[in-house]
């Protein structure tokens, strides 16, 4: 058997607004065997320090960049040697079932990393190389999932060697290639000195400014709102939490995440991506949660397959994400692959939000402060805890009718609790 090939791990884009970073710290050493999901390094981005995970198994050969060196997205940072032909998918069986889990369509079906997928394929131009596309194809053959992931990570499919049927690019090829195009961003701000764990507020503002400007420039938003009676939910939570230790208590936000995920699973038109002038529905429902940082700015890590998780699982995922966001220990897999976003204003926040969508997503759900309001039940007016749920949606992808049905589904989950309580 010949020696297994090496492959380079490239700096991934951890959100559409990131185009460079710095390695702050290595978490592995040359010679270490790493498994999919292991943390390789801590990388400083404009928004936050992020723990970078490896996508597949291997043995660390060498580091290709220096600590503190400013590097573009897509730059090879670590060289690894593949391990055998069938790396074990150990990461999926890891002890943290919560937020970090990587989506199930793993790389295990096509495991031997072909040199072509990881060598500098940059020279290849769209549709040109015989190796990656059948003659005559003006569109690179690729699975819908691969197309979506490529858009999310900013990978040009023409630069990826496909190993699927007819040379089609499949998800695994992207994981191997990790070939990321720097986002065509506008203004850039200097990032803070490398050793500094906290980002300057100015550079985060710049990153948010770029992304939100792009959203407002490119996305024709429409906005809908609906008042939801949370009386039943509040009562149920109170009762449920009363006889549970503090670590097992649920916050309303876990219910919001699950309600939105269940509604998105039924209204797939709002769960996915606008890429190349059309909508690509996502296979999973990965709900990003907007978390504001006290020093200013925000991050939006996601809870993967939130529709498949119980309230308890979602709660522990949220706890983990918020803790990680505020201590600068977010993992890279939480930062890519979200399919829609939830922003929860909290009980000291505003009543409602007209959100700005995070591209390439097509929907953002907002939940405002819960406050006592007069509410008509039957022929009587009573005072109920009311929250206003809003939807900002991309009019290119859907119309208001679909958005209304989606909001009705969210309201239904929060008012009837039928599916909310059920185990996933």
């Amino acid at each position, binding site marked *: 058997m010949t020696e297994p090939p090496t492959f380079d791990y490239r700096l991934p884009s951890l959100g559409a607004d990131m185009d460079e970073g710095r390695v702050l710290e290595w978490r592995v050493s040359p010679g270490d065997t790493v498994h999919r999901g292991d943390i390789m390094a801590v990388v400083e981005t404009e928004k936050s320090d992020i723990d970078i995970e490896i996508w597949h198994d291997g043995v660390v050969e060498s580091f290709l960049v220096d600590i503190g060196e400013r590097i573009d997205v897509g730059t090879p940072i670590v060289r690894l040697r593949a391990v055998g032909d069938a790396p074990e998918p150990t990461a999926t069986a890891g002890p943290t079932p919560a937020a970090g889990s990587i989506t199930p369509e793993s790389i295990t079906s096509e495991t031997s990393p072909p040199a072509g997928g990881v060598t500098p394929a940059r020279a290849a131009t769209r549709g040109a190389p015989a190796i990656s596309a059948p003659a005559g194809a003006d569109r690179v053959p690729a699975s819908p999932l691969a197309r979506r992931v490529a858009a999310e990570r900013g990978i040009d499919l023409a630069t990826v060697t496909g190993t699927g049927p007819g040379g089609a690019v499949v998800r695994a090829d992207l994981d191997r290639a990790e070939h990321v195009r720097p986002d065509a961003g506008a203004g850039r701000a200097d990032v803070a000195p490398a050793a500094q764990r906290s980002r300057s507020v100015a550079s985060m503002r710049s990153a948010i400014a770029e992304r939100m400007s792009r959203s407002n420039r490119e996305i024709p938003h429409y906005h809908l709102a609906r008042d939801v009676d949370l009386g039943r939910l509040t009562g149920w939570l109170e009762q449920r939490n*009363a006889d549970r230790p*503090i*670590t097992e208590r649920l916050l309303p*936000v876990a219910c919001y995440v699950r309600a939105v995920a269940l509604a998105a699973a039924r209204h797939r038109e709002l769960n996915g991506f606008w890429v190349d002038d059309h909508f690509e529905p996502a296979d999973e429902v990965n709900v990003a949660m907007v978390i504001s940082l006290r020093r200013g700015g925000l991050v939006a890590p996601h809870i993967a397959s939130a529709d498949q998780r119980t309230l308890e699982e979602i709660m522990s995922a949220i*706890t983990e994400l918020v803790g990680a966001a*505020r201590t600068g220990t977010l993992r890279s897999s939480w930062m890519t692959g979200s399919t829609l976003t939830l922003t929860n204003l909290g009980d*000291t926040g505003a009543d409602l939000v007209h959100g700005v969508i995070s591209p390439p997503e097509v929907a953002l759900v907002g939940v405002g402060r819960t406050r006592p309001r007069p509410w008509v039940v039957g022929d009587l007016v009573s005072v109920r805890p009311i929250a206003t749920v809003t939807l900002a949606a991309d009019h290119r992808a859907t119309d208001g009718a679909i958005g209304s049905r989606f909001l009705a589904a969210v309201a239904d989950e929060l008012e009837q609790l039928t599916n909310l309580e059920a185990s996933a």
Partner: protein
Amino acid sequence: MTTDPSAVVPMVLSAIAEVAPELEPELADLDHDIDFWLELQLDSMDHLSIMTRLSEQTGREIPERDYPRLTTINALATYLSTSDAH
């Protein structure tokens, strides 16, 4: 069993500082008799994290029904320095 509430105040403050390190400079001047959750703009996740820490450190359950009266540093310290009612 009752201990001196003032002995518990530092524990409460350090729980806040652990959950919200950015707020540490403000804690020195914090009025111990005002609603610090509002004053420091702590959210429900912060609330849960701080209460969890305090519960773990004192071994005392803090039922949700007690939350409404635990809004000031002094109220929390007094509460935590008093053992569970039997």
